[in-house]
């Protein structure tokens, strides 16, 4: 079991090297001139690192949400976390705030939304995940309305920036280290929790009967998934699709052992967003596409293919 897990992890890491932006890696390894080195180390590397971490965070958050809600349609955004972040970020854009301050506002928005959902549905447990889901979905709808309102009222020259943020954009991602600082310990924390999560995936009553403290585990998973999402959204805007689809793809290929799925999600999610961001930067260079569009365009056919072939 342990060996197979390691080998899967190893295989995916290899895949990520093959898949990831060829040019960037070549530049990284074969650099001579000082100017190019600065370009790679200070511009490209942080961006690639940010892309990878964002994808990893979103995929892990999605996998956690699906277990928590025992709903295959759940993704990191289903409970309105990205909505809160988006409203805050768009407000920042409207107010002319940018850079780190905007990221900070997005993060606060995400945290606010999380606390709101959590506060309104605090009694987790047997039937209460349905309550959590409904509360989250309704609050997400509320944020959605606010976003539309802001877009409708925004001055025209700000709209492209706002839309790019909404679709996910890594060009402002200057600080990937925060995301990594969260992603790596999270994967480590989740390793020993994997089996508890396996049991939780079978339903809260069954989990309790087997000795899991369901209430505190559910709380922990919810808050952790929210934190991961908040960091991801802060880093790169709301990149869609990764959190929903990566865990499913991995389940189709690897089965449903969370000890495998969660770390594999981090790697596969990272790969997908890294690849997507590379395409987003290069396809119509020097113009850039929103990375969220690419993740969806890459993900939809792959997912449908696996679904047709696979065992979902």
């Amino acid at each position, binding site marked *: *079991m342990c060996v197979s897990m390691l080998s899967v992890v190893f295989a995916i890491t290899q895949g990520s090297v093959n898949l990831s932006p060829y040019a960037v890696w070549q530049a990284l390894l074969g650099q001579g001139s000082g100017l190019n080195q600065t370009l790679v180390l200070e511009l490209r590397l942080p961006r690639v690192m940010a892309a990878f971490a964002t994808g990893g965070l979103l995929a892990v958050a999605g996998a956690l949400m699906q*277990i928590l809600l025992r709903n295959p349609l759940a993704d990191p955004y289903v409970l309105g976390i990205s909505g809160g972040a988006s409203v805050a970020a768009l407000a920042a854009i409207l107010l002319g705030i940018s850079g780190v301050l905007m990221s900070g506002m997005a993060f606060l928005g995400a945290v606010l939304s999380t606390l709101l959902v959590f506060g309104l549905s605090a009694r987790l447990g047997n039937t209460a995940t349905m309550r959590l889901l409904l509360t989250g979905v309704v609050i997400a709808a509320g944020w959605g309305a606010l976003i539309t309102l802001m877009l409708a009222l925004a001055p025209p020259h700000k709209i492209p920036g706002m839309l790019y943020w909404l679709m996910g954009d890594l060009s402002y991602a200057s600080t990937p280290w925060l995301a990594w600082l969260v992603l790596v310990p999270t994967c480590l924390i989740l390793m020993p929790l994997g089996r508890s999560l396996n049991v939780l*995936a*079978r339903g809260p009553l069954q989990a309790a009967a*087997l000795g899991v*403290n369901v209430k505190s585990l559910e709380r922990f998973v919810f808050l952790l998934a929210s934190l991961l999402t908040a960091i991801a959204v802060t880093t790169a805007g709301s990149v869609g699709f990764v959190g929903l689809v990566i865990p499913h793809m991995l389940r189709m290929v690897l089965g449903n*052992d969370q000890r495998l799925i969660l770390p594999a999600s981090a790697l596969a999610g990272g790969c997908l967003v890294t690849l997507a961001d590379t395409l987003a930067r290069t396809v119509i260079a020097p113009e850039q596409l929103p990375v969220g569009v690419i993740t969806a365009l890459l993900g939809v056919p792959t997912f449908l293919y696996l679904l047709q072939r696979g065992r979902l």
Partner: protein
Amino acid sequence: MTKLKLTQLLAAIPNKSAQPTHALSLTFQAGQMWGILGPNGVGKTTLLHTLAALKAPALGTIELNDQPITELHRLKLAQQIGIMFQEHQDGFPASVLETVLLGRFPHLSPWEMESEQDLALAYSALERLDLAEFAQRALNSLSGGERQRAALAALMAQTPDVWLVDEPTNHLDLHYQVAVMGLLAEQASMEKVVVMSLHDVNVAAQWCSHVLLLYPDRPPIWGKAASLLTQQNLEPLYRQKLAMTELNGKPLFVPIA
């Protein structure tokens, strides 16, 4: 010797006010096979959930070997008390073997992987319930009776001292009804406590050493099956006229339309 002692216990049944005169004070002893009988909605399942510490009682205490179960760590409790639910929740897709291996969960520390021994226990449980060839099948591709047996195999892999089983014969054909009751009787003979809810009074009459009769409108009674399973006690229990005959020295009840 394992024992589960109930003192003035009243399960919290939704939408019903607790009546102190209906409280239970009895001890389930190792080696005994208890059947809980009563009409629909009287609280058989709720009582089993309460015994498994999944639900707080309205009144009273439960002690496992003289220790209140509320003071035991949940994981420690799951090593000793196992429950099979009547309704099998559909979580994410999983294979039969994975499901049965989950029974080992309380016995493993967070960093531990399932050992050879855990696998062996899971396989022997599967074999005991004629499910060995289903090990790699998806749980949701099984029939109702096969799922019931898989759930029992998971409970068997959990190796608890107290077996709480909610309607063990549900969905089972006659052959497996006998096989499963035989398995539970075997556990009782191995000094386990076996407590099950049953809707079929004849199954209780044939297999149980003790019964607990839960009446909707009067205090419950409990004791040896042979002395309590009478027309006089059962007719008001089910509010149904019954005819009684005997087969191999055990009573057999038939409802009269």
